[in-house]
């Protein structure tokens, strides 16, 4: 049977066909849809873990217990889980373990463009890289086979394009399940990384890499397709598909396993072509290894290390360097050369709006964090002055507080991010006499990645009811004495609470409570503007709501356009009515 699947849907299907029985992860673009799809297979236990490291440890525990396991993460989540992934490379496992990292070349939704292929070399485990949805499915199955054959974790690396593109997949059959497992294997010399024992495991790890390199020589997903011998191209992942399109006649060595590399096969290919290119998105990971073999391959001398390496870029570079005949294609000069940009914005009805409206007015320094609220960085708010990694805002605030700044500092962090990595740094502030205001923007979901559950919700990924963790109780238990919970849709109350917290000499926590519109799903009738009362002062526009628009009618004195409200977008959150200085914005009768 065939189906049109995204790479992420195909990975979930692969998990099913591979007989994986435990799947964990933390949401992050471009990986988030994998576990959401896994949760539709009832033979698999799946969960959104509190963060990637916990997900990795839980998967290791399942694989130690004899259950095949999968962990999913975005590229920067690998930084969080790598500490645990690395010990599993030393210990090996009782059942197959695959870690899926979805990288984000082009940084569509990430803070950096790191190339996670380097992790394979650093952590000494094999890495597979699928090029389309069929391979996404197949490589999970093969990953489990390799994991069990070589007693190693296997990492499968996708990119945004492989994860989010859809292509046709031939579905396989139903899997065999492990059945009963246990009792738990008590093999401490293998599974307890005490230095004495771990030292003995390291040579095993090195020998395993040599065995895997030999295995890679005949591994069927590393294959040569001979074409024109004048040009040979080594490529992997979706870039292989791009290169096939741009250089339809060339010879190809397609690598399904990007670490360790099949050196004999690479030598055979290099010897068989006149000119050898290594085409890679981001870093010269394969190129450096090929050149270290003494082979004269061309890669980053031509192809840039930044951004997606799309077919149009390949074509342009190939033409500029005589690899393809030149073709002149230019768009005719347009009447409208400078297009207004269109950045993402906080949705109409978003509970984060009041916080950023007020922070902009108060002109305080703000340490930001990762989530939808990072849109508070953009105009008209300009109200998050730093942002780096999950949970960083609280630690950065602490450092700001210890630096003797002339003004009180605050940080903004969402409920999901707080559970992920915000608890230890808040504890640190309490213990070390920190000063500053932590604003926890509690919208009851992991919004940016598609509304996944977290410990603040009363349900799990598999739809089971569970205990809802109360953030205020948790924060008080950490030792914070100044804690205020405020309705995020009450602008006046939010303003007063911000004043009170920022005047406090110590660690203060302000919990701004308001559900994401995708959680509450409770739209109210659209508001409207009394144009006789509107003086076109522009205050409502400072709330950055997409439903607040300009109309053609102007204030005759200032010639400024008056305000209007888009009845399709407005969901009646009331924030613009509260901030309008002339009372022109009305709730409908």
């Amino acid at each position: 049977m065939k189906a049109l699947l995204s790479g992420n849907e195909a990975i979930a299907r692969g998990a099913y066909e591979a007989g994986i029985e435990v799947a964990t992860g933390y949401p992050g673009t471009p990986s988030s849809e994998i576990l959401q799809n896994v949760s539709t297979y009832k033979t698999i236990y799946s969960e959104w873990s509190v963060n990637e490291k916990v997900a990795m440890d839980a998967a290791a525990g399942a694989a130690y217990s004899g259950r095949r396991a999968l962990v999913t993460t975005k590229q920067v989540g690998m930084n969080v889980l790598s500490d645990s992934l690395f010990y599993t490379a030393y210990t090996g496992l009782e059942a197959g373990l695959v870690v899926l990292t979805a990288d984000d070349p082009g940084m569509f939704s990430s803070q950096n463009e790191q190339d996670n292929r380097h992790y394979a070399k650093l952590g000494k485990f094999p890495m597979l890289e699928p090029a389309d949805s069929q391979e996404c499915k197949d490589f999970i199955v093969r990953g489990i086979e390799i994991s069990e054959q070589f007693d190693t974790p296997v990492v499968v690396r996708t990119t945004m394009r492989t994860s989010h593109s859809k292509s046709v997949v031939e579905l396989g059959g139903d899997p065999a399940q492990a059945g009963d497992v246990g009792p738990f294997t008590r093999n401490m010399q293998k599974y307890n990384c005490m230095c004495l024992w771990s030292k003995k495991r390291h040579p095993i790890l090195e020998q395993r890499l040599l065995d895997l390199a030999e295995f890679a020589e005949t591994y069927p997903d590393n294959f040569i397709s001979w074409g024109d011998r004048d040009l040979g191209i080594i490529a992997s992942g979706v870039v292989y598909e791009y290169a096939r399109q741009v250089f339809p006649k060339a010879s190809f060595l397609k690598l399904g396993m990007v670490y360790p590399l099949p050196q004999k096969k690479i030598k055979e290919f290099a010897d068989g072509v006149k000119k050898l290119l290594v085409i890679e998105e981001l870093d010269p990971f394969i190129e450096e290894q090929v050149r270290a073999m003494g082979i004269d391959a061309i890669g980053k001398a031509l192809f840039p290390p930044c951004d997606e390496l799309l077919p149009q870029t390949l074509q342009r570079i190939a033409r500029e360097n005589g690899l393809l005949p030149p073709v002149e294609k230019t768009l005719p000069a347009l009447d409208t050369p400078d297009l207004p940009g269109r950045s993402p914005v906080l949705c109409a009805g978003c509970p984060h709006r009041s916080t950023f409206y007020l922070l902009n007015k108060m002109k305080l320094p703000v340490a930001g964090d990762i989530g939808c609220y990072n849109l508070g960085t953009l105009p008209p708010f300009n109200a998050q002055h730093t942002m780096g990694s999950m949970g960083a805002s609280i630690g950065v605030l602490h450092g700001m507080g210890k630096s003797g700044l002339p003004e009180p500092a605050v940080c903004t962090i969402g409920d999901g991010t707080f559970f992920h990595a915000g608890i230890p740094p808040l504890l640190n502030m309490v213990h070390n006499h920190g000063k500053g205001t932590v604003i926890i923007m509690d919208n009851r979901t992991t919004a940016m990645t598609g509304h996944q559950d977290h410990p603040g919700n009363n349900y799990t990924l598999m739809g089971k009811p569970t205990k809802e963790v109360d953030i205020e109780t948790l924060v008080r238990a950490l030792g914070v004495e100044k804690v205020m919970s405020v309705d995020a849709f009450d602008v006046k109350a939010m303003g007063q609470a911000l004043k009170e917290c920022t005047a406090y000499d110590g660690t203060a926590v302000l919990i701004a409570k308001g559900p994401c519109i995708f959680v509450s799903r409770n739209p109210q009738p659209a508001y409207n503007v009394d144009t006789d009362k509107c003086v076109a002062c522009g205050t409502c526009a400072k709330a950055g709501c997409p439903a607040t628009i300009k109309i053609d009618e102007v204030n005759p004195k200032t010639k400024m356009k008056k305000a209007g409200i888009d009845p399709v977008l407005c969901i009646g959150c009331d924030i613009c009515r509260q901030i309008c200085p002339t009372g022109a914005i009305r709730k409908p009768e």
Partner: protein
Amino acid sequence: MSEDSYKFLIAGVGGQGTVLASDILAEVGIRLGYDTKKSDILGLAVRGGSVVSHIQWAPKVHSPVLDEYDVDYLIGFEWLETLRRLSYIKPDGFILANDCRIDPMTVTSGEANYPEKDRMMADFKKAAQHVQTIAGTRTALDLGNVLCFNIVVLGGLSTILGNEPDIWRAVIKERVPAKVADLNLTAYEKGRELIN
């Protein structure tokens, strides 16, 4: 246009239903017997930002991403976003532009001006041989739900392509939420009528 390959680009604003439309278009390609690939941008970009979907039908598709100057059909869900992707269309290509304006925040705040409609239209005609506007948003509002404008536009596209309408109807029915299936099937028929 090439005999046996169709390259489509859908340009819109996050929240307009671009991904659903591209899913439907890709699925129709499969049912018509083509190899099909599609690629959209998800994540932070969907919160009211620019969204673009690439869809191809061909005997064999390699890259899921389309090249500039190589798209047969540019389907614009919003004026400015259609204009933004003009470099993708082939000179003998077809632009199907939904009559819809959504001001970006830069325009609302007064930092930038939204281009005038007749100048945008003139640019469309410079870029592509065939240009057609469609009142998808107006039609959807008349049907009582602005969100179904994407299906109105797909209805128009299906008339232009001349494919078997029953395949489109079946895919639409499967892909949209059950409680709005009838509304969307009506939207599809209205879209077909708008182009006739």
